[in-house]
């Protein structure tokens, strides 16, 4: 995408802490899991913003916040000039139409006792204005066709479909209410390579035809590069670097981004000879007790005293025009 559309969603300093309690009768708060801790970004009309990061870094919590399935500890998310967390009544209903979600597991996210037609048409029970009763099955069949399924299979059950087909059903359900934004949480992670490509192509086709904006969450960095216009990299509840697909993959400046990219095995046996190898030690620390200052410092080979005392902000730094949350941000080419 050459130029960015107008911002459609603006996320400001979003925080979600889960309390850790002790005791049965009198629950005492003994700590908090800092699942999302001060996340800000903009999503533009018609673009795909990829979110990458290792498990536990807060990706799904971020998705649930944006879907209003979780309530934030603090922060705002502005959609059409309104904070989604302050919406109620008709506004909330409109939000629920406007922002939809596709999840990883096509096996568990579809009710096995409902026909495909009922699953896709379920949202119409609440939002009757979108498809009047007499019009529903025609609309559902259109959706099936749109996602590449046979419209005649409207009365089949989820178990009669393959994994990739079930993911298409999940996508059709998300499209039923004509949303503007779809939050995709690991939508292709459970699929085999050949099926994954089919679903990725479908998501791209739908975006073009319906002018959708995607937040595309995944841990597969190659998939995210392919589908995203911009990419945010998360570590322990924070975005540590954000930029265009090209900036993040070709000109990363944050050590974590660089290490992450370096660790991805490439389908090219010659790559192992000339690639820059960065190997992180240890595991990600607990989000209930994150390191002071820069959260990455316990695994970072560049860490200095400043990193322990002062939190690096996600800002533009001298080396590169895109934001990076490292005191010692520096260009390093790790892919290619």
């Amino acid at each position, binding site marked *: 995408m050459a130029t960015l559309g107008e911002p459609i969603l603006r996320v400001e300093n979003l925080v979600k802490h889960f309390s850790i309690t002790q005791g049965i009768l009198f629950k005492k708060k003994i700590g908090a899991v800092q699942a999302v801790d001060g996340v800000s970004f903009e999503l533009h009309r018609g673009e795909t913003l990829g979110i990458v990061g290792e498990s536990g870094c807060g990706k799904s919590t971020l998705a649930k916040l944006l879907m209003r399935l979780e309530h934030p500890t603090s922060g705002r998310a502005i959609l059409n000039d309104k904070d989604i967390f302050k919406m109620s009544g008709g506004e909330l209903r409109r939000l629920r139409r406007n922002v939809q979600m596709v999840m990883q597991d096509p096996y568990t996210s579809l009710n096995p006792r409902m026909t495909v037609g009922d699953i896709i048409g379920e949202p119409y029970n609440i939002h009757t204005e979108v498809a009047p009763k007499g019009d529903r099955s025609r609309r559902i069949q259109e959706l099936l066709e749109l996602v590449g399924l046979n419209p005649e299979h409207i009365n089949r059950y989820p178990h009669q479909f393959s994994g990739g087909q079930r993911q298409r059903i999940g996508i059709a359900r998300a499209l039923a209410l004509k949303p503007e934004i779809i939050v995709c949480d690991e939508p292709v992670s459970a699929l085999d390579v050949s099926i994954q490509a089919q679903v990725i192509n479908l998501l791209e086709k739908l975006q073009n035809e319906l002018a959708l904006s995607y937040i595309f969450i995944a841990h597969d*960095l*190659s998939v995210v*590069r*392919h*589908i995203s216009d911009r990419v945010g990299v998360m570590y322990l509840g924070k975005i540590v670097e954000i930029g265009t697909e090209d900036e993040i993959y070709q000109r990363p400046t944050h050590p974590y981004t660089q290490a992450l990219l370096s660790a991805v095995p*490439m*389908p090219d046996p010659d790559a192992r000879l000339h690639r820059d190898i960065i190997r992180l030690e240890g595991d990600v620390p607990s989000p209930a007790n994150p390191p002071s200052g820069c959260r990455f410092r316990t695994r970072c080979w560049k860490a200095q005293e400043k990193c322990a005392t002062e939190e690096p902000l996600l800002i533009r730094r001298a080396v590169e025009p895109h934001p990076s949350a490292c005191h010692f941000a520096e260009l390093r080419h790790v892919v*290619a």
Partner: protein
Amino acid sequence: MTNLQVGGDQPAGQHLLEVRDLFVEFHTRDGVAKVINGVSYHLDAGETLAVLGESGSGKSVTAQAIMGILDMPPAKIPKGQIFYNGDDLLKMAENRRRDIRGKDISMIFQDALSALNPVFSVGWQISETLRTRTEMSKDAAMKRAIELMDLVKIPGAKTRVKDYPHQFSGGMRQRVMIAMSLAMDPKVLIADEPTTALDVTVQAQIMDLLADLRRDLNMGMILITHDLGVVADVADRIAVMYAGRIIEHADVHSIYKQPAHPYTRGLLDSIPRLDHKGTELATIKGLPPNLMRLPTGCKYHPRCPYVQKPICVDEEPRSLNLGNGRTSACHFAKEMLDGNLG
């Protein structure tokens, strides 16, 4: 170079491990699933063979047949041989086979958590592996357990032997599994999707560790995976499985440069790349076949962009020897290799 497509009557080869024309079926209420349909591959000391394929292609079942841990019934092996140092494991008495399994040939699995017993310390579990197979004393076994944990680079092994599986992270648990699999100095290590459940930075650590161990201990390693990146990173040779057959086999450099089977080519074209954004992905149409009702002829023909009637529909392609250890089970293997198709 050995011909991979040798029939069952040739003498046992000189390889460390050789699977020859193996067939496995599962007899279930719904019918007979033909899961392995003539798999042949071999492994020598000090090398890594990657077995690549999508889920359900038969990678794990082949490994289970080698280990002798298939449940029979429902599984049945109507045909085939599995040679270890020239002896057919499938014809061996059970007590000799048990000696080889877990000692000469050992295996690690994707899911370390469910493979470990939650109520025993990891040190106890590693030392038990030793004590059930050797005369080792309790103390000696525990000492060896610590050495093994050091070998797989678990920091502070001496204190951590007393910890329980849930006290380890996913990556550290996989290291414990690897330590346990190395207890008896195996000659062959089968790693079945060892990093699939792990994050990418931890996956890289574990793959490095496995590569180092394979080299230092001069083991042969069979690495089962669906990840074309992992294969390119660590394998010497690669065997691609589809519907219970090895449809292509080659050294890792040749296959990525010029695949000789349409399925391999389809796989390589359909993965997004880290090093460029790319345009629309190529796809393989349709789905893998139902193993209860396999297609006639080439099992890939319903999905193949190069299918030609009637030959592909009527005749199952033999595995064609293309020289330099390369084989491909496609009627048009030579044309694929020369780039004269599509």
